[in-house]
């Protein structure tokens, strides 16, 4: 605080609180600090609750970090010592067991996990580090061709056109005004296209170990190349990594994503993961009208009916649903596992996801495909 000598004494604790919040990753602008000070003054303040509410209203911590805000508030103003509850972005990580459907816990986990005492729920909570690797040819191709070849949809905004369904009255009138009110030529409008939403669900369980790093790199390239891409990973948990992948530098983004995901190489409960995804209205909305791409081998350890229901629901919301599995090699792929057979009729494209090149091929071919 000594570096802020001009501040009135009374304002210092509040400005220091803002610094504390910033140090803990809350984005707070100077104008918000000013509003906070004004708000505290307006309210009295008659007690700590006034200060807390003033902070909530003016500093606007996002709702999923409300608990962290409250904890920092207690530490700063009330001298609390709690450092226990590790603040997690709970909104972004959905623990599947809490979203379970009240039935028996499905048998899960890879055999390797079951021996460990910690793996009672089939979770091998580990963090993964990625080594540096240059962009492969496939990823470079994706970055280059994405703007021209990713799927688009008709938007609601209109743009000038040579011919179109609507007359451009504004332009026509302006031209007419120049010609003493004589309409020489009618301007036209048509609907502009926009990039279609894309939803990428990446399986990071043990059986997909060989592919998960490449798939995440691919997701990063796609996130950078297209504007509205949502990316989730699933294994025994469901994790939203969209925000981490918005970081431009590849290694930094992958490290951030790897840090978020805690169920690398564990068991698989695809059905439960997708159910959990659909149960959060905000997440479920990402699938609506989107090109949904699931990168998974479909080796389901849980209940096949849960998987089938979830995929059916997802495919009704999606514009087109693709399931890319490393098991599908060659043209005449016939699914063998029980899970893949169950979901085959809801999936529009069940294709090879065995390498980045084949995944990129499919993504870039989506534009020519129709809604299904």
């Amino acid at each position, binding site marked *: 605080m000594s570096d802020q000598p001009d501040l009135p004494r009374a304002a210092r604790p509040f400005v220091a609180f803002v610094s504390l919040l910033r140090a803990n990753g809350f984005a707070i602008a100077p104008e918000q600090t000013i509003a906070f000070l004004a*708000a505290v003054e307006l309210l009295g303040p008659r007690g700590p609750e006034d200060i807390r509410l*003033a902070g909530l209203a*003016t500093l606007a911590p996002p709702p999923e970090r409300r608990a962290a805000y409250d904890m920092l508030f207690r530490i700063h103003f009330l001298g609390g010592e709690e450092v226990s509850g590790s603040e997690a972005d709970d909104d972004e990580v959905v623990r599947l067991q809490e979203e379970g459907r009240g039935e028996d816990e499905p048998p899960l986990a890879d055999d390797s996990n079951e021996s460990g005492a910690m793996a009672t729920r089939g979770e091998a909570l580990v963090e993964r580090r990625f080594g540096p690797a240059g962009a492969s040819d496939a990823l470079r191709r994706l970055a280059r061709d994405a703007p021209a070849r990713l799927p688009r949809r008709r938007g609601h905004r209109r743009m000038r056109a040579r011919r179109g369904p609507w007359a451009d009255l504004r332009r026509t009138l302006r031209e007419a005004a120049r010609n003493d009110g004589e309409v020489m030529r009618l301007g036209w409008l048509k609907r502009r296209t926009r990039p279609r939403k894309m939803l990428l669900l990446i399986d990071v369980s043990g059986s997909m170990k060989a592919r998960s790093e490449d798939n995440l790199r691919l997701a990063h390239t796609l996130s950078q190349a297209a504007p509205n891409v949502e990316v989730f990973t699933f294994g025994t948990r469901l994790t939203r990594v969209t925000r981490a992948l918005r970081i431009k530098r590849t290694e930094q983004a992958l490290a951030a994503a790897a840090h978020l995901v805690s169920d690398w190489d564990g068991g698989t409960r695809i059905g439960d993961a997708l159910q959990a995804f659909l149960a959060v209205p905000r997440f479920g909305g990402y699938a609506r009208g989107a090109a949904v791409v699931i990168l998974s081998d479909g080796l389901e350890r849980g209940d096949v009916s849960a998987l089938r229901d979830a995929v059916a629901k997802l495919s009704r919301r999606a514009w087109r649903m693709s399931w890319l599995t490393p098991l599908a090699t060659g043209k005449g792929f016939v699914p063998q596992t029980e899970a893949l057979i169950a979901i085959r009729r809801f999936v529009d494209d069940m294709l090879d996801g065995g390498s980045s090149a084949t995944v990129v091929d499919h993504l870039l071919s989506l534009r020519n495909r129709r809604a299904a």
Partner: protein
Amino acid sequence: MVVRATIAGIGSPEALEKALRGAYYLADDGIATAAYLALALGKPLLLEGAPGVGKTEAAKAIAAVLGRRLIRLQCYEGIDASAALYEWNYPRQMLAIRQAGDQSIDIYGESFLIERPMLATLRAPDSTVLLIDEIDRSDQEFEAFLLEFLSDFQISIPERGTIRAAERPVVVLTSNRTRDLHEALRRRCVYHWIDYPTAEREARIVMMRASSVAEATARAVVAAVGKLRREPLSKSPGIAEAVDWAEAATLLNKGGARWPDAFKRSIGVALKDEEDLAFIAPRLDALIAEAVA
């Protein structure tokens, strides 16, 4: 920053809460404080929350408390300046040019201007409340356009010049959080996340909104709705659904249906998704029995 400690006779969050109660809106400390600060600091109020927690109702109640006209701008994808701000009446302009003949005419006069919600608020900031509803439905272009409006409260019409509000208007924005809003937008506003109310407060809301509902019914419905919200449903029932459910069950009961049965038969007004209904159906009896007890 212009700070007005008292607006329309309201000088504290408690006074605002009391006034809102008079307008049939039960506010908790959080929202009363946020709304008071927004009014006092002259900033827009951004309300976020799940569908059906009463965001739009809050804006209506604030307008009623201030005795102002509510101007509602419903957002949708592709909404643009001609729908939010102003538009010229082109056919009329064209007709005027034709009729004017040799005389000169100003086709950008007042009579050719069609006022849209944002312009209407700028012109009468002391007698209106602007509600920009479901901002998350609009696209990023519109959000960027709003930023300019919300920081300076002025707009420019190329043909007529800049129009500035005489005082800072009261603006309420709502969002269902179907997508993340731009940080810059959150920064300019006083923010409040509306959570589902506590059971106690929700029961009072139900009774206030539906006067025919008995207290025991209201409490049972609120308990049942509280349980439903903990289930992984694709659409959890909001406050509006709780009110409807209580009203529907009361109506069925008056028509002769027994109590737990009346709740069960009217579940359709609380859960409106076929799959949610199918999912909850096996346990519905137990859930209602627990709530009624």
